């Protein structure tokens, strides 16, 4: 195991990378403008923060629909099916093994880009956190259309705020986790170029090799 060679495979397609970074940009921008609207600090000025927040929020909503469409037409949704298989060994790895220099118990492959812990996290993120955030945001944005007949704005705002805090928390942990690869930046560079480093012994299909894949 110690003398395994590291090779690169093409793991993230153009669309996935684009979607990932666009979403990252939007989430960061929404968090910054959102906190300003929340009254935490002032940066852009309230009015501009509201305009930017609304614009990006609505854009995200539209783009998310494309993403969901892509997810189901490509079958990539299967990457999000949760599993308990090896889940605990991943947890134990991050809790102990990583300090002992042990290898990651689950290697990435195109058929399984996410380890069991990632699957669970990303499922929670894209099936629960983000939709709730988008829906509460939409309710917030259109509040004047239904205000007066239904619930007051406060609970909508509270949910939207709480979800935002959870997204910030996710972002912090997520960015930290990128540093746990073979080198500090190998995961990040993988998400930029599409090429992820894995150990040689992992079974790699022929079509995954650099020469065969553009």
């Amino acid at each position, binding site marked *: 195991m110690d003398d395994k060679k590291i090779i690169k495979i093409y793991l993230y397609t153009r669309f996935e990378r684009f979607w990932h970074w666009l979403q990252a940009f939007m989430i960061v921008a929404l968090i910054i403008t959102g906190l300003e609207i929340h009254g935490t600090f002032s940066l852009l000025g309230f009015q501009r923060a509201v305009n930017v927040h609304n*614009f990006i929020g*609505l854009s995200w909503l539209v783009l998310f629909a494309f993403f969901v469409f892509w997810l189901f037409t490509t079958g990539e949704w299967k990457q999000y099916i949760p599993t308990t298989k090896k889940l605990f060994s991943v947890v134990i790895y991050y809790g102990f093994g990583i*300090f*002992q220099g042990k290898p990651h118990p689950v290697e990435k492959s195109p058929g399984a880009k996410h380890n069991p812990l990632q699957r669970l996290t990303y499922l929670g993120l894209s099936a629960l956190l983000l939709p709730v955030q988008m829906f509460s945001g939409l309710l917030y944005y259109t509040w004047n259309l239904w205000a007066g007949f239904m619930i007051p704005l*406060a609970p909508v705002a509270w949910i939207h705020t*709480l979800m935002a805090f959870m997204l910030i*928390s996710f972002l912090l942990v997520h960015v930290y986790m990128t540093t746990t690869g073979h080198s500090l930046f190998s995961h990040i560079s993988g998400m930029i170029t599409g090429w992820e480093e894995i150990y040689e012994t992992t079974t790699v299909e022929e079509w995954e090799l650099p020469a065969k894949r553009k």
Partner: protein
Amino acid sequence: MTKKCIPGLITIMLTAFLLVGSSAPAATNPGGDEAPGRKMAKQAVKREKRWITTDHTKHEILQKPFMSGEEVTQACLSCHSEASAQFHKTIHWTWLASGDKKDMKYGKAGYSVNNFCISANAMEDKSCLKCHAGWNGVDEGVNCLKCHGTEKFNYKEAFTDIQAFAQDDDPESKEIMEEIQAEVTNAVGKIALPGRNNCGECHFKGGGGDGVKHGDLDTSLMKPNKILDVHMGTDGEDFSCTRCHTTTNHNIAGRVYTNPAVESSKSLLEDDLAPKITCISCHSDAPHKNDSKMNDHTDKVSCQACHIPEYARVNPTKMSWDWAKAGDLKDGKPYHTKGELGKDIYKSIKGQMTWEKNVVPEYFWSNGTQTSTTAEDIIDPSTVVKVSHPVGDAKDPDSRIFPFKIHRGNQPYDKINKTLLAPLLSGEKGYWTTFNWEEALTLGNDTLGLPFSGEFDFVKTTYAFPITHMVAPKDKALDCTQCHRRDNGRLATLSGFYMPGRDKSTAVDSLGWIIILGSLGGVGLHGLGRFFTRKNGRRKNHG
């Protein structure tokens, strides 16, 4: 690989942003077309002047030598046969809010009081009659010239003189009389629809002086620039009062005591015969640029709340009046002291007062009606008595957040009957002459036919005036953060609704920050752990 990606990425991003561009708010629509509300309002006032088909100076009946005011009125009525009958039914004549003359509850001529000169004492206080549009209270005919005469002329004095000289046989007296009559005839011929001078003579000086009462109505509006009032500015639209206070059968649109100016706000598109008294009439309820978040405010926030950043921007207005301090004399004589703004801050006959300029309004929910505490109503002297206060609630769809001037008073009340008292002020037996509260209060309440126990004290009161004039140009309107801010915002005292930027749930925020700090602490410790055990990894990898 990466190079090939870039054009693709750009194409996708551009497509995405074009796709969502149509649903994007103002951020993507800088400058561009004029706001619809402005466009509509401009169309509504496109016709520059009303055309008039008569010249009153040419009417023979107005050229005769008049002996009395009543004769002038008869001359008017010889053509405008219904004018007097119409006018008799209006509040400008009756000084009662209700059309029913027996309903004395609300109105200057009724039980209404304020915290300025308190009561008109059923018109027994003759100094109040200066503003009544009759030749002598309601005893003689309507003085049409009060509202329709363009020349400022003291008819009352002129007719007193004419009648005095008419008694005299001296030809010189007759000559003088004819001279005065010629002046009267000259003034009477100058008839027009009511102008600012007519309305302003009473409404700018309500409460006994310039800017005393309203705060958004004072003589600075006689000839304002558009920075003071974007509608009335003589360098702008130059509206007269009646441009918005439209009139039917001599009934002029506007709020009176408890009654709102309009039952419901409608634009001219919805009802072109509705009074043009509301902003919505001409500007519609979505006046800002399309997709502007500002349009989402109009169901909760009045136009005035943002577009009148401060009132009394030129002349000062009276903000408080403490009657309890009245009666202090120097060497047995009444005196007065002027303050910084050139206004009296103490007057022996009136007490202590404060004046302010550029005042930030106080904001309340308002559905257009106001509560009114009259001299009949039971008060709770342990609280600040709201003599006049807006009615409204955050949950009421007809209520808007509206700016108000709150005038704070300290005025006499009956300790036994628990009612506000109506002292007689002017005249020989009035407080201003006698400085005797007991007598003034007894006589005053007598005029209204209301009891006075003889025991009185002073109670703190408030009187609310809606701020609706002195609309500033759009670039002077309030910035979002005047209200959308955590502390010291303009709406800090209004509760019952959630406002972004001002409100938060302490529980949600605390929980949120705990989650974030927990995550930060977690990854920090984990990272430190990896840093200190980094050699384990290397040994394994390279050993």
